[in-house]
């Protein structure tokens, strides 16, 4: 089965190469995805004529709002969070085991380093509270696979449970066990605001670190990233060099991690089963090295829905990875005024 062979490739086992798997993935989509086949037909492309992965038609992330793209019976349904009145992206995912394989291949390397089963504090709602969140799926797997004694989830439908979080942080300060904090940027701000209000600071053990993802989409409160990093150091004793950012989206199975120690802010590394292209926004042809453009991601792990995805993000290809430089303007109301946060794409 193709998804299993891709999982083996993700796990680093020898076998099929990237190009061969990409060709098979396209053939699978050509057979089972009428929308993809429509695009391919317009380009005169078939599995027989495909020469390389770059030719595979781009699927816009917007398609996840209006179409069911699964090429097999979905076993998980992930829905994006968003703003009031927004249409969510829906990822019908047939291969959750492939998602787990991706997490196994990336998370420990990016976050754990030499930590063995550290206590983890999750500010991400559990699967029980957020059954259609791809992030909750990921965090559940992380906690089940690598979290040590004392780990807990302190988020619910009402937000961060501050008292429980404080208890965890105080315990780690006492027992000196380095910890991993798993959170969206917005939940981190909630936690910091609580600690600010209580004028409470912790000195978490050296080696403690933060996994941060998600940004502030749909939220009214924002904190500049440098402010957030400074606040984490001030309130938790975790320096900016120990904050790892994840770039991911509901529409993708793979995700990307920053490496805060390599002095390239906003730089994300690309794993071996992913290729990326940076495209001229107007022509959708590839830009020259060093130029910014729309980020297109070819993700073998997304074989269940869309392998060649056109994102709305603006990026620059950088040393085998990419650097994000902007987000696309989504549809908004115009009020003889400027942009609104009331998205409705």
């Amino acid at each position, binding site marked *: 089965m193709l998804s299993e062979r891709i999982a083996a490739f993700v796990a680093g086992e020898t076998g099929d190469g990237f190009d061969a798997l990409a060709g098979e993935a396209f053939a699978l989509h050509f057979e089972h995805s009428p*929308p*993809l086949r*429509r*695009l391919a037909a*317009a380009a005169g492309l078939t599995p027989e004529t495909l020469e390389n992965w770059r030719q595979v038609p*781009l*699927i*816009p*992330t*917007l*398609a996840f709002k*209006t*179409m069911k793209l699964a090429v097999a019976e979905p076993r998980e349904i992930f829905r994006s969070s968003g703003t009031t*009145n927004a*249409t969510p992206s829906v990822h019908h995912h047939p291969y959750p085991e492939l998602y787990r394989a991706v997490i196994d291949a990336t998370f420990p390397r990016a976050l754990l380093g030499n930590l063995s089963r550290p206590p983890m504090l999750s500010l991400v709602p559990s699967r029980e509270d957020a059954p259609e969140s791809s992030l909750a799926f990921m965090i559940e797997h992380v906690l089940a696979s690598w979290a040590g004694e004392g780990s807990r989830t302190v988020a619910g439908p009402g937000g961060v449970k501050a008292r429980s979080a404080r208890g965890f942080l105080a315990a780690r300060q006492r027992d000196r066990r380095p910890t991993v904090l798993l959170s969206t940027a917005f939940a981190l701000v909630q936690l910091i605001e609580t600690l600010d209000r209580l004028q409470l600071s912790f000195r978490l053990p050296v080696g403690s670190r933060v996994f941060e993802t998600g940004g502030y989409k749909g939220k*009214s409160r924002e904190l500049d990233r440098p402010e957030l990093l400074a606040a984490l150091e001030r309130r938790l004793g975790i320096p900016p060099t120990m904050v790892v950012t994840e770039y991911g989206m509901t529409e993708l199975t793979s995700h990307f991690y920053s490496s805060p120690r390599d002095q390239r802010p906003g730089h994300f590394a690309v794993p071996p089963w992913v290729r990326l292209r940076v495209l001229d*926004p*107007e022509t*959708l042809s590839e830009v020259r090295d060093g130029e*910014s*453009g*729309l980020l297109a991601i070819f993700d073998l792990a997304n074989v269940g829905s869309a392998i060649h995805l*056109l994102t*709305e993000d*603006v990026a620059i290809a950088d040393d085998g990875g990419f650097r994000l430089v*902007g*987000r*696309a*303007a*989504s*549809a*908004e*109301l*115009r*009020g*003889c*005024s*400027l*942009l*609104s*946060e*009331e998205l*409705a*794409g």
Partner: protein
Amino acid sequence: MIHDAACPEALSPPTIAVERHGVFFTSAQWAPESLERLADHLDRVGARALDRLDPARLLDAWSRTVGRFRDPASAESEALRPVLTRFCALSGGGLDAALDAVLGGVDRAAAGRLFTEARNREATRPRPASRKRGRLVAVVLAGNLPALAVQSLLPALARRRPVLLKSPTSEPLFAPAFVRALVRAEPALEAALAAVTWRGGDRALEAPVLERAGTVLAYGDRPAVDSISERTAGKCVVYGPKASLAVISRQADRVRAAVGLARDVALFDQRGCLSIQAVYTDGDSRALATALAAELAERAASWPAGPLDPTRVAAVQQLRLEARMRGLYQPALPLASGTVVVDPIPQFRPSPGLRTVRIHALQDLAEVVPRLAAWQGRLQGAALAGGPAWELESVLSELGISRCAKPGSLQSPDALWHNGGLHPFDALGASSQDAEP
């Protein structure tokens, strides 16, 4: 040298030289104290000056000033238009059309009607003699459209209220240029008008102005207007983000409708609250799409799009690709000319801009009402063509739509337009209101 402030010289703060978009200008550096002095002066001295000013002279000065800004050959236009194209990200043709649309709505005839109504109101509801303070109107402007300052300035002057215009930092030059020209036409206005700018959200800086003003009109995005509103309880009118659409009956002349729709889509590069973002029709949607695409191509020749913002282009590319995946009808058009898609899903979805329109086919035009219900209070205008479309006017009004017009006229309201459903004089009333029902 261009200056980003217009106010009585004695009250002008220190300035610094600034370069933005390749334009050099001087920028006034406001502090809470200098803004407080300015607001106090406008409210006291300016109000008295307006009381002494003959309305006929004021109307004449207004009309001559508007005429100079509409005339591309005037000194004011020659100085300002090249600068505004850069600050507003419009092409030269696009800017000319935008200025003509906005200024045409406040020309001598329209202003005259407003002044007459002001006179009638004063005759029936005279201003209380005891009201010596709080006549100042503070207007917080948004940056997406040029020349919007005139839409709030004219009613305030007609009601003899001094005005402080706060321009956005993204376009700080039109309002002071207009105020200076108006003061040249009628020097008695110098004490009553100011146009200034500062980075919005500076609470300490804004406090004296918001406190002194009797009325605050706030245009902008949701967080900005909410922030102002919460600090000005009882005297703020908010003009927040809204969207507009068109309803075209099968009885309407398709070509004429398409010509008008193209104007209402392309004007301001689709950045206005009256810019059409979606079209509903019970006629031949493909034929209407083809006709609209052809007219958008024509418009692009006379009003080319401004510089394309990559992030906005990205959103349009998403829409185009998604439409191709669904096999939707999409007449060929260059990206900069616009995008037209016939979408069978009738749900109203705001356009990502760049003259992008979804056309939705309906069996019966009345079906449009439930499709828009979720957007009640966030809709601004509707272009209507054909009798059955106009029959919907009252139900559309119940959804909060404050302006219905034939295609091609939607984006050209005059000075008496009830923006957000509120008469411009009522917006100047003392009580706090939100122009979104």
